[in-house]
Each structure stands twice: as C-alpha cells, then as structure tokens.
C-alpha cells in the first residue's frame, strides 16, 4: 500500500524522465516528415468534413452545426480512446527498460499521457482552424474545456495505472479493451446526436463516455457542462484512483516476473 502510493508519487519527482520519454516518442512518430505531427490531424479533418457533408443531412442539421458537434466529438474521443488503448501497453512497450532499471509505473503512465496530450493539442489546432473556416464563433463557455481536459487527462493517467499491470500479466486484455472501445464508439453519441430522441436515453445517461465527452464538447458548442457530467466523471475518477492503488499494491512487486 505504502509502496503503491510511493510509486504514484514518483510521477512528480521524476517528471523529467517521463517528459523526455514522451518527447522522444513524439519525435520518433513524426521523424523525416515535413509537416510531421499534422498529417494525422489533417486526415482527421478530412474524415470530419466528409462525414458532416453526408450526416448533416441525415440528422437534419445545418452543415456548420453538425460539423462543430462531430469534430469536437472526434477530437475528444481520439484523445480518450488513445489513452485507454495505450494505457494497456505502458509496461509492455517499456519491457527493455524495465529489465535494466527499476521504473515506477506512474512514470510510464505519465509518459503515455503526456505523449497523447501533445497529439491532442496538435489535433485541436487543426480542428479549430477547420471550424473557424466554416464560421464557428466560440462563446465565453469555451473556457470550460480547460478543467474538462485536465479531468480527462487525470482519468487517462489513473486508468493506465490499472490497465498497464493487468495487460502485462494477461496479454489478451489489450485486445479485449480495443474491441470494447470499438463498441463504445458506436454506442456513444459522437456521430449521432444525443438530443434527437431516436436512441434510448439510457445509452446516453448511463454512458460514462458520453459524460466524459460532454465535459469538453458542450463548452465548444457554447454551453457549460451539466452538473451530472461533472459528478459522473469526478466520481469515476475517485473510483479509478482507489483501483489504481489496489492494482499497484497487488502487482508492483511482480512486474519484473511478468515481463
């Protein structure tokens, strides 16, 4: 228990380690390409424009209104789902290092989260430019995206502390998580809009991912997130923190033998 808390606490003292690892990850991903980080963002923008041209009509919304909804949803879903997927592999991908030096799990989780925050910011710039071109004007509520993104980042960090050790011990959990995310993408209002009444309301109300996305999407669309959004995600975060301490307490000492 004490060891687990010390592991998590190490994320502060050793920030230079994970920051450096994340910077190298980003450089590796984009090396030798001219506009580097923006290729993936541009491809996301293309997808969003294409889908908005078609589905705006299907859902009977103006192109601009649907474009903002869809691109905000894609942007945030990309951030959340990448953190969850890669949360599974934080220990597996660091196998070489973990055989040589003891590294806290929290340092490897923070490396993954930091990497994805940078990618998210790249995407955000391109998406912002896209919606600006089509006449989007933000409101003062846009400021709510800041606490929203901070909360989602913390969520990704603590979830990685739980998933990392589990996926190291049981290698097929990574695939299970990937498939579930695929399912969650369609069950969550990202392409379809939650206020149309065509999908049972339970899909929205009892969907953690909906509340996570709303924390950032609602401010982009000009509204403040609801109290329920905050409560669900905040409560989920507390549960995750408790789970991460339990997981690390149980798994920390076995990591080397699971490599």
């Amino acid at each position, binding site marked *: 228990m004490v060891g687990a808390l010390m592991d998590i606490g190490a994320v502060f003292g*050793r920030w*230079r*380690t994970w920051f*450096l*690892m994340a910077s*190298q990850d980003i*450089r*590796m991903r984009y*090396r030798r390409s001219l506009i580097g980080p923006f290729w993936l963002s541009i491809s996301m923008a293309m997808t969003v424009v294409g889908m908005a041209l078609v589905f705006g009509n299907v859902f009977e919304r103006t192109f601009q209104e649907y474009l903002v909804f869809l691109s905000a949803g894609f942007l945030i879903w990309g951030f959340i789902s990448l953190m969850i997927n890669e949360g599974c592999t934080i220990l597996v991908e660091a*196998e*070489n*290092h*973990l*055989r*040589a*030096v*003891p*590294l806290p799990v929290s340092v490897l989780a923070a490396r993954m989260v930091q990497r994805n925050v940078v990618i998210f910011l790249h995407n955000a710039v391109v998406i912002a430019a896209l919606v600006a071109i089509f006449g989007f004007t933000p409101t003062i509520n846009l400021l709510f995206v800041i606490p929203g993104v901070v909360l989602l980042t913390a969520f990704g960090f603590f979830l990685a502390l739980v998933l990392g050790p589990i996926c190291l*011990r*049981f*290698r*097929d*959990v990574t695939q*299970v998580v990937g498939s579930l995310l695929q399912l969650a993408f369609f069950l969550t209002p990202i392409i379809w809009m939650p206020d149309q009444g065509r999908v049972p309301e339970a899909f929205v109300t009892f969907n953690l991912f909906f509340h996570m996305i709303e924390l950032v999407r609602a401010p982009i669309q000009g509204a403040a997130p609801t109290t329920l959004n905050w409560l669900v995600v905040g409560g989920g975060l507390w549960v995750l923190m408790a789970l991460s301490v339990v997981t690390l307490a149980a798994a920390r*000492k076995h990591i*080397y*033998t699971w490599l």
Partner: protein
Amino acid sequence: MAAIDLDAVSFSYPVYEVTGRSLKMTVMRQLVGSKIDLGVGSVEVAALSEVSLQLRSGDRLGLVGRNGSGKSTLLRLLAGLAHPTRGRMHIDGRVLPLIDKGLGINVELTGFENIELPLRFLGASDAEVRAAKRDVPDFTGLGPFIHMPVRTYSEGMRARLAFALCTAITGDVLLLDEWLGTGDADFYERAQQRLKGMMSATQIVVLATHSTDLMRSICNKVAWFDRGRLIVMGDPDAVIGMYLAAQQSGFEPVA
C-alpha cells in the same frame, strides 16, 4: 554509509505457458476447477533459496557459480528490479545497476541526444546530467560522430557510448554484470582507468564475472552460488579455489 543486508532471502518466479498469459484460460481454469489441471498455467522456478549476507562500505563482492546458479538473480534483487518472495532485504545508499543493456539508447537519435535519458533512468540529478553532457563527448572520442544518429555507429562506437554513459555517474552501491564491454583496443586503456576510478569512488561493489583473475584483483570477498544457494562466502583465493576444484572434479556441493 552504504550497507546491504539480506536475511534468508528467497526468490521464485512463475514461468507462464502461453495459455497462462491469457485471461480467458485463467478464468476457464477457475470455472472448470483447478484440481484438474493445477499448474498447467505456470511452473514455479526457485532462483534463490534462503540467501543471507551482509556487506558494508569498502566491500567488493565477487559472485561465482555456474550459469543459472542465481548470480544474476541476486543482482536483480539488489537492483530493485525483482522483489524477494520471502525473507528480508535492506539496502542503504544509492544503487547503480549496470546489469542489462536496455538502458534506453535510441538508435534514431544522435549520440549526444542519447546522453540524458539513460542517466535519468539511473536516477541522475540535473547537475549530473549537465556534467555528463560536457564529459561524455570527450571521453568517448567519437568526435563529430557524437552528433550523428546512433544507427550510423559501428559496434565499437556503440560500446564506447554505452560504457561512457554507464560510468558517467557514481552511486554508493555498484552492481556489475559481465556485459560491460569496452569496444576496441585503443579505448580499452581509458575504459579500465575509468572503471577503476569509478570503483574506488563507490562504497560497495557487487560483481558477477567469469574472469576469476579480474575478481582476484578487485574483490575482497567472493560468494559461490550453486542452484540458488549460497554455498560459501569468504576470502577470494580460498573460495575461487574451492569453486574451480569443484568444477574440475564434478563435485556437487551440498549446502
């Protein structure tokens, strides 16, 4: 003052079959009833049994034993990579583990860009990283190559860089495994000098090597391991003599 205390430390680890790594198979086994195929998922390997030893400042311990006798496992426990299954282990001081090559050299980055991360892995402070950035380029003698990607390096050049990084900071406890290669011949002298300097600046050294000559010249204690047990620990000449004699006669020690 650095100190190492091991009290009846044992370490065993499971070796998982392919199915043991699967959550589905593990759950299925529970459902079917573990009586049927207990142990199918993993086999326990006892790598160290009931090892007790004390080291204090000034001690240089050499480890001898056949392959698989537990020398490397002991180093991994001391490094904090693995944790004792039973028994107590206590270490005072900063441990510098140089026992594996996976120290994080990224071949796509230049030699210079590769200085910081391995040192951060070893727990280097900001000041130590700054000092290494000044010192490593000179010491390796790589010249302009220090600003080329490591993938363009020859084997010898890579060995130089790895050696320079590993010896760029000092700790209280130094753990050394065989691998610390030094590259080509003209680098050898400088490397030996540096290694000597590093050892004298370190309070406790634990060294696993097959070179009994090296061990005799450095160590003041030698421990002989066989099948995870500490057979005997004491004066280097005496223990190495016993170990070599046992190897020649094919004698099996009984702990």
